[in-house]
């Protein structure tokens, strides 16, 4: 029997192997039996709170056992969850809660105040600061979701600055998870180390895939102390390590790691941003036994391509081929397929493609186009690619100004809006500048209102008060006037190349 919904898969593993460990977090071990039981009890608590099938529940939590319990509890309630960055600020959270018409917010204790203020802005959804306090046996279990129901509503930065909610049904999520499980050859013997936040879909799927195959997920709050990661790799006999370039950059710069045996570590995955060729070599020297999967994706369909590890040496710059059961190709501009070598927008077909952006028909129409069948829609990624003669895909660039920092998306517009909300700032432009650790660093260029001056440190504080951590500019450069193009727009290209010229060679 194969589970049709996220949550049914947990039930199956828990029934067969209740004592197997599902999640290791902060050195405590949560078994499948216990996770299953707590998910059921949280679901009853949510139902008593008024959460019904199809409702949306926002999760503002750092990686923890509690977050895993909350995710499966919401699914068992027949509802959908929105995993949000735990450092999200009040106004953005308020926007998301109102947009999602969230029925409840579950957050970490120390986020209670922010969540309460945001919920008040958005119409007063109840805020729960301890998911375990919801757990109860006293009540009827809720009706389960169908596979066509909404499973997750994942917010991603939109080009206009407001986040967009990517709608994924259970069928979408399960299809994507199973396709990835297939090429990574994951099974119940796997022990995955996840240092990526579950609010990031790449992190989230580590939990979902791990539970689907009955594996063990070692869940960390981040990779703050690499020494701890090294210890976990050895002591927890980790078999799979998903990372972004920043994580691998850090690990491959550590002294002594390449001398460790790590006999269990069989695969590494990278996405979020491309790996520079030098880093690929460094990773292979650090982890000579592990196979490295280079991948590309976007939240709107989770994952698009993967490069089989055997191809890494001959096609180092490629992100590979479509994931199993899907198709992806370069558009020729007329709805056909571009010839090898030609650059065009990457298009995607398959059951992993989202249902659209929540409550945003215009945004949806921009990304989802009519497909082969009357009922099908294909995904236009907005990213430019080319294919080689054998169909391997290469990322060329973005058709918008998106910055990738620490593997996460940064929409310049969102940061610029916050910069411009400071009364001292007249002009603002945010550009990405290559950075060894971050992939790209967020650089802000600003000019002051007449008669005003700008204190760069003060302005970064202003950003920190209104933006998640990864959106706060690393560098603020104050100009008298920003350079303009012949069209009178701020010349971001000039700003970006000026910054590049200042980098050490």
């Amino acid at each position: 029997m194969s589970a049709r919904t996220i949550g049914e898969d947990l039930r199956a593993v828990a029934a067969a192997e209740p004592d197997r460990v599902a999640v290791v977090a902060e050195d405590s071990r949560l078994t499948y039996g216990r996770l299953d039981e707590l998910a059921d009890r949280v679901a009853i608590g949510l139902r008593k709170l008024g959460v019904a099938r199809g409702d949306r529940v926002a999760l503002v939590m750092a990686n923890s056992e509690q977050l895993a319990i909350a995710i499966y509890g919401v699914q068992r309630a027949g509802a959908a969850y929105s995993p949000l960055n735990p450092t999200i600020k009040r106004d953005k959270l308020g926007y998301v809660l109102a947009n999602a018409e969230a029925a409840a917010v579950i957050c970490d204790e120390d986020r209670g105040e922010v969540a309460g203020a945001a919920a008040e802005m958005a119409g007063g959804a109840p805020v729960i600061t301890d998911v375990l306090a919801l757990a109860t046996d006293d009540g009827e279990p809720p009706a389960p979701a169908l596979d066509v129901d909404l499973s997750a509503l994942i917010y991603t930065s939109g080009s206009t600055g407001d986040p967009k909610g990517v709608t994924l049904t259970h069928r979408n999520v399960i299809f994507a998870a199973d396709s990835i499980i297939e090429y990574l050859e994951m099974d119940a013997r796997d022990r995955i180390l996840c240092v990526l936040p579950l609010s990031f879909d790449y992190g989230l799927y580590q939990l979902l895939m791990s539970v689907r195959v009955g594996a063990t997920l070692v869940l960390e709050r981040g990779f703050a102390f690499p020494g701890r990661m090294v210890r976990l790799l050895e002591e927890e006999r980790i078999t799979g390590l998903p990372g972004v370039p920043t994580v691998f950059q850090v690990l491959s710069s550590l002294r002594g790691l390449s001398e460790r045996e790590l006999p269990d570590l069989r695969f590494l995955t990278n996405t979020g941003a491309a790996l520079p060729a030098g880093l690929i070599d460094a990773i292979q020297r650090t982890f000579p036994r592990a196979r490295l999967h280079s991948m590309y994706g976007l939240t709107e369909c989770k994952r698009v391509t993967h490069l089989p590890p055997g191809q890494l040496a001959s096609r180092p710059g490629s992100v590979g081929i479509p994931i199993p059961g899907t198709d992806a190709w370069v558009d020729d501009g007329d709805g056909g397929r571009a010839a090898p070598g030609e650059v065009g927008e990457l298009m995607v077909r398959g059951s992993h493609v989202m249902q659209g952006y929540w409550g945003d028909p215009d945004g949806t129409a921009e990304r989802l186009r009519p497909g082969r069948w009357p009922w099908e829609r294909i995904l236009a990624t907005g990213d430019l690619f080319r294919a080689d003669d054998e169909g391997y895909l290469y990322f060329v660039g973005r058709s918008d100004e998106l910055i990738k920092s620490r593997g996460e998306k940064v929409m310049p517009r969102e940061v610029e809006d916050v910069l411009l909300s400071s009364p001292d700032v007249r002009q603002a432009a945010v550009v990405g500048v290559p950075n060894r650790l971050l992939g790209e660093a967020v650089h802000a260029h600003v000019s002051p209102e007449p008669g005003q001056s700008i204190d760069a440190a003060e302005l970064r504080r202003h950003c920190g008060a209104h933006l998640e951590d990864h959106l706060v500019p690393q560098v603020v450069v104050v100009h008298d006037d920003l350079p303009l193009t012949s069209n009178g727009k701020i010349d971001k290209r000039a700003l970006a190349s000026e910054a590049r010229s200042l980098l050490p060679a």
Partner: protein
Amino acid sequence: MSEEQILVQNGSVRRELRGFIEENFLYLEPELELSDSDDLLALGVVDSLGFVELVEEVQARFGIAVDDIEITEENFGSIDGIVAFVDRKQAA
């Protein structure tokens, strides 16, 4: 090295570290009075990438080599922890 010399050196390691942390990590929280024993991670002063910068800075500034397994909470979790770690490494 005499005990006095070590104390003087400790004082300068501490001062330099504090200067680096204030300049690079405390801009978001100017009101925060960071004590030498405060937990840098729990207080949100330094995040995961910050520690990498901090480790690189410590290696370069104090001329020590930091092994993979040494980048732990005990050694890098507070100013006191880092000072003690640098002291041990320099003495070794």
